[in-house]
């Protein structure tokens, strides 16, 4: 009896120690990666990074054109993806809450949410780059918009579903049409949550590399022409990190740090906005 008891006790202690160690190793490992990133990234960080163009190998320079390019592509992607995502999410949470279409869209949306982003790049290459005959910043933005849509659809639907039905019923009892109930009451009540979804989407796409590789491609020079290849931070990091030049590798680390700080800041703001609500 007492040996059985001791064995059970011992197994418990072993497994709990293991789970404690797993936490230390898991979290520590990730912190280690961030530490290296900050260490290597800070070494190359200076004002020049934000004011100068990408250099040829062996020269000094910064990351101005990829940063601007990333901002343009991201802004455009959000401008394209957000309205579509919010409208589709509205249908699923309001008009067609129990319709079969919503069930199917919900499933498809979840698939798109986790689909490999490189496949999205191939898709946009097929439908935009190949017919147009050249790579373009616009194609990059559309590719990222395809990634934005499922994120926004998901959060919009979840947040609208948290709006109590009594509010809709009260508004409907006043004779307000459905469309106005949705726009003036539901959107207002779920606003912060929906904004969170958009911020999360921005955080998600600002580090995406794979879909940009063969849509926006890259550009050595400063360009705001949406119809031409456009530099972006992730694509430049990819190119510079794999190059044999030390200066370029250093800039890649700095770029990686810039992206990570931006992504973490966006996620934290999104989290703070959604704090009173339950996150999806």
């Amino acid at each position: 009896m007492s040996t059985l008891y001791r064995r059970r006790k011992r197994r418990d202690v072993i497994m709990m120690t293991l789970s404690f160690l797993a936490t230390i190793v898991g979290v520590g490992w990730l912190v280690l990666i961030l530490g290296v990133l900050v260490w290597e990234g800070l070494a190359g960080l200076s004002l020049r990074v934000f004011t100068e163009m990408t250099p040829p190998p062996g020269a000094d320079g910064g990351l101005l054109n990829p940063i601007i390019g990333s901002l343009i592509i991201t802004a455009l992607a959000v401008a394209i993806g957000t309205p579509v995502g919010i409208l589709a999410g509205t249908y699923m949470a309001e008009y067609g809450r129990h319709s079969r279409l919503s069930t199917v869209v919900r499933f498809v949306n979840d698939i798109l949410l986790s689909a490999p982003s490189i496949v999205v790049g191939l898709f946009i290459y097929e439908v935009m780059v190949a017919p147009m005959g050249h790579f373009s910043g616009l194609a990059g933005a559309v590719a990222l918009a395809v990634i934005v849509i499922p994120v926004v659809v998901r959060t919009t639907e979840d947040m609208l579903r948290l709006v109590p039905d009594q509010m809709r019923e009260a508004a409907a009892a006043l004779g307000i049409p459905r469309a106005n109930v949705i726009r003036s009451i539901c959107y207002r009540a779920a606003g912060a949550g929906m904004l969170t979804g958009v911020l999360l989407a921005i955080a998600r796409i600002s580090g995406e590399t794979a879909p940009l590789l063969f849509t926006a491609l890259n550009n050595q020079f400063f360009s705001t022409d949406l119809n031409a290849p456009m530099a972006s931070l992730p694509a430049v990091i990819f190119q510079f990190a794999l190059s044999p030049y030390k200066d370029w590798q250093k800039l890649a680390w700095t770029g990686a740090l810039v992206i990570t700080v931006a992504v973490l800041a966006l996620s934290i703001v999104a989290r703070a906005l959604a704090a009173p609500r339950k996150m999806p």
Partner: protein
Amino acid sequence: MIDVTLRKNGARTRALPTRGRILQRLRRNDAIYRNVTRGAAIGVLVLLGGVIVALIDGSMPAWRAFGFGFLASERWNPVTENFGALAPIYGTVVTALIAMVIAVPIGLLISVFLTELCPTWLKRPVGTAIELLAGIPSIIFGIWGLFVFAPFLQGTLQPFLITVFGNVPVLSSLFAGPPYGIGVLTASLILAIMVLPFITSISRDVFEQVQAVLKEAAYGIGCTTWEVVWNVVIPYTRVGIIGGIMLGLGRALGETMAVTFVIGNAHKISASLLAPGTTISAAIANEFTEAVGDLYTASLIALGLILFVITFFVLAISRYMLARIERRIG
């Protein structure tokens, strides 16, 4: 009183046409909004359909040239335009599976710690940290893998594996060859680190859905913490855990940047895990812009189609499992 009634009546008779028109307009606007939102929802379906159609259409030349032999051939020769998908498929599956074998037990143990052992004040910070880490772009893991992790493995773990398993029958071929640093094993380890936050946060969420009464009952009859986890929490959340694992697997299969940096991009299947290999996404990322000729491009798009089909099924199973546990608990 009469006045009021009169005024009311008068107002109504005069306002009736306008009022009717306003109502009509509102009704029309409502119908328009309904259809616009419906159109957007259908647009999401069209998007998925478009992806599938575009990939099939773009990969047609490859299927026509190689048929289903494309799936079974290891050749990849851009010069003679002879392509086969076996090596990337093998690399994708092997790296993802090794990553899961490492990440799943660690992720589950972390969730056990977070739900059963962790003091309340530490729960939120650690949980939030893990969720934030899930959002870090994969290119960060890639660049870290290339500059820090691969040289580290080359100097430590890989020579160790080679000497330790050098004389063990099966394992010696698994860990054979010179320590390149980059290769299948390195890519798998980085994938494991990447999917760890996903698996942890999902399994923590499903663990937390277990009703306190169930756990308290088990503690009440004298179970140890581990026995509660093993006999109550895990059986109760089994479906959800599998769903979470499949979701992580979906990520690992489709992950591009973290792998591309460290896999070595060699289109061959080696028994050794230390040798360079390739995955579907790494092959596409590395070669697509340099692909000359329709057949080369089509073959890479065909790889993309294969990847999409594999992840589609994995994700569909995952969603089905997660929906099942939600229905049971919710």
